[in-house]
């Protein structure tokens, strides 16, 4: 892997050349939080952010997306071109890069890759950056505190500089274009990187054991923890909206009443919504809130492990941060493991 470094006080000039690869979206303050958005000036970019409210999936799988236009008797035309706008995601944390890699597996592999996701992914450049965890991050528990792929460039803080890892040929193109701003790394830079990397790993205040969690979940399908969570959950779906790996969507048609035409689109759905498992005839496989909460945990921590070899959780802490009922995924896992006791689950 090619490595260079860039002075922190030259990062504004480095970012200035990125529009060559697409519209730059970076972490900027939005109200009480942070969002990936086009910065209006360099000083708006805040690389010390803890987490954005919405993860990068909002770019790759937009909350609302038009997929095709149809006309009676003529068939349909896809709207893939609308997904073709190049974007540079600047300042993405490792867990969110892993989140993108998980979405890549779901939408980009298998017999039926999703062309809309694939088009956006193809046109998205990812520049990662390391970060200082807060009390809600538990990325190491999900093996998501470091990534070795999924980015075009990755920036690691080594003091006056960022060490720049080049992950793809597109990343190399950026390095080629901005080469005058980049320097060769030294042995002292490597030593500083290793020192800070160890410091960062040691700074996580929250951890949870998931090694045998799929098996424990298998045993605890009837646990009262799920009923207790069902009593508290409001089914608002906030946790699924902010989750970097939740990808459920609903497909809908919008008919033009004045003409035999219409569009087909999709919008984010949530397994916590009462309608999620309702089918024709009115049957609902998960009518109870407790069943829906349990389904989400089982899908992410057990089903996904069986299918893809790892949980579809990256330890970002977003779901715990936004839950209006105070449900905390770490506490739920501890409760189901009997580490905190059922009665304290999520308290």
């Amino acid at each position, binding site marked *: 892997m090619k490595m260079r470094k860039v002075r922190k006080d*030259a990062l504004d000039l480095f970012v*200035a050349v990125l529009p060559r690869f697409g519209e730059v979206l970076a972490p900027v303050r939005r109200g009480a939080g942070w969002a990936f958005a086009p910065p209006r000036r360099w000083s708006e970019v805040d690389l010390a952010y803890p987490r954005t409210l919405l993860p990068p999936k909002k770019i790759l799988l937009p909350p609302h997306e038009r997929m095709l236009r149809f006309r009676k008797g003529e068939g349909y035309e896809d709207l893939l071109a609308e997904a073709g706008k190049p974007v540079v995601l600047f300042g993405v944390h490792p867990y969110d890069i892993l989140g993108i890699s998980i979405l890549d597996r779901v939408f980009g592999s298998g017999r039926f890759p999703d062309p809309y996701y694939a088009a956006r992914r193809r046109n998205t450049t990812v520049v990662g950056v390391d970060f200082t965890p807060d009390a809600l991050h538990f990325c190491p528990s999900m093996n998501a505190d470091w990534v070795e792929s999924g980015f075009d460039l990755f920036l690691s803080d080594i003091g006056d500089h960022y060490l720049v890892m080049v992950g793809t040929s597109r990343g190399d193109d950026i390095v080629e*274009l901005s080469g005058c701003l980049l320097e060769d790394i030294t042995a002292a830079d490597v030593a500083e990187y290793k020192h800070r990397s160890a410091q960062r790993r040691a700074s996580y205040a929250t951890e949870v054991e998931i090694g045998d969690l799929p098996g424990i979940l298998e045993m605890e399908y009837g646990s009262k923890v799920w009923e207790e969570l069902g009593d508290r959950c409001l089914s608002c779906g906030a946790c699924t909206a902010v989750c970097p790996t939740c990808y459920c969507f609903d497909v809908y048609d919008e008919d033009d009443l004045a003409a035999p035409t219409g569009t087909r689109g999709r919008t984010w759905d949530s397994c916590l919504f009462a309608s999620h498992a309702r089918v024709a005839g009115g049957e609902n496989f998960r009518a109870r809130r407790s069943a829906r909460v349990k389904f989400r945990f089982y899908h992410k921590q057990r089903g996904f492990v069986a299918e893809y070899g790892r949980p579809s959780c990256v330890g970002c802490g977003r779901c715990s941060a936004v839950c209006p009922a105070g449900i905390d995924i770490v506490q739920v896992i501890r409760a189901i493991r009997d580490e905190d006791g059922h009665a304290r689950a999520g308290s």
Partner: protein
Amino acid sequence: MSETKRILLIDDDTDFRASVRALLEREGYQVLEEPAGDSGLLTARAARPHLILLDIMMRERTEGFFVLQEIRRTPGLADVPVIVSSSLYSEHPFFRVREDAGWMPADLFLPKPLRPQQLLEEVARLLARAPQETAP
């Protein structure tokens, strides 16, 4: 009868704006001025100029680059010709990314100090190929 062309100057240098304004007005252009990127964008959206002359180093060293991106994603402004004029390269000689390497979404880069005749020629050339209807 052809419409008087509106040119928006976005530059934090008062003397530069005054001299360029005098030069352009003598040629019959209508000139609007703004001293900063955010006010420049507001005026650009309201007045829909036929051409924008944009500085880079204003309150922040790269301010103009961000203004340029915003111009390019704003409906009605995206196709307006933009001339970037800056002393960026002379003030930061370590920055050697060629201005014509395709990373700057401007129509033209002119280093400061500007040569008046060259500016007038380029303004005329870009206005001749610009979209004719930009009324707000």
